[in-house]
């Protein structure tokens, strides 16, 4: 099911363009999904519909668990989570000030450089956050 109308067409369009620019300018980005905190796809890059829906749901669960752990540890708030696997990286990054709350899930391959990926993702999230700020 597409939840796009729930998130505002203009802001969603801006987010889509930001994702595309991020994908083009950042080495190693395989796919990315902008997701609402409760697990709906808002916009996506280089991933099929079913894959985007799954990544959105999984990204929101991870983000929610990350926030719970940060709270438990007294180091609120969880800004990003990084999963480093054998052949790539997944980053779940909180989009600042977005309403409703959102995160960006990024899948990158071995060609990515973590620092560069995080820096570009943060810039992308900031731009998306501005679009969804009320």
């Amino acid at each position: 099911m597409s939840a796009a109308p729930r998130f505002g067409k203009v802001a969603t369009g801006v987010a889509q363009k930001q994702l595309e620019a991020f994908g083009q300018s950042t080495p190693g980005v395989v796919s990315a999904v902008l997701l609402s905190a409760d697990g709906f796809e808002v916009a996506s890059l280089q991933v099929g519909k079913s894959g985007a829906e799954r990544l959105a749901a999984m990204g929101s669960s991870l983000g929610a668990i990350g926030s719970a752990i940060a709270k438990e540890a007294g180091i609120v708030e969880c800004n990003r989570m990084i999963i480093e696997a054998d052949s790539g990286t997944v980053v779940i990054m909180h989009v600042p000030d977005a309403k409703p709350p959102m995160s960006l899930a990024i899948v990158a391959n071995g060609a990515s450089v973590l620092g560069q990926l995080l820096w570009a993702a943060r810039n992308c999230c900031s731009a998306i956050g501005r679009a969804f700020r009320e």
Partner: protein
Amino acid sequence: MSGADSEFKIVFTGPMGVGKTTAIAAISDEAPVSTDVFNTDREAFDKALTTAGLDYGHIALDDGTAVRLYGTPGQARFRFMWDILGLNAAGVIVLIDASQSDALVQLDHFVDAFGSGKRTPIVIGVGRLDHAGAPPLDAFSQRLETRGLTLPVFGVDVRRRPDVLLLVDTLLCLIETADPTRLTA
């Protein structure tokens, strides 16, 4: 470690808005861990927050048994969390909201998703039975019986600690009957 004589894991599941987080909070000895997030799907259920990851609580019973309580998200898109949380669970409590129009279908759905009681003992708690148009409690038992399943079904108010404890105690009995070694594993 809790130092309990035996400790095991049970899972609370059921559709969105049925009160899984509330049920765990009602009986947990400590403030439960919750992963509530802003709910954008007000059509599915009109509430401010919804669980995206899991709920976690803990209860020590008088006989020295300690129970870890896990709650799943209710929405089907979080199905992968059901499988993760269901792993190694000694038993499952399925909560159903009788006021939801598809309550009986939801019953089938969640009971099937957790092995129909054949793999892991299941107890059913049905809430909001007093809602106008809600099926009677018997309808839920009969629904299971038509499918050859005999599972304990109780009417509950998940805000009430004794109601939730009744579900947990019943599940413990089922677990012990099904596999007496499981409680000491």
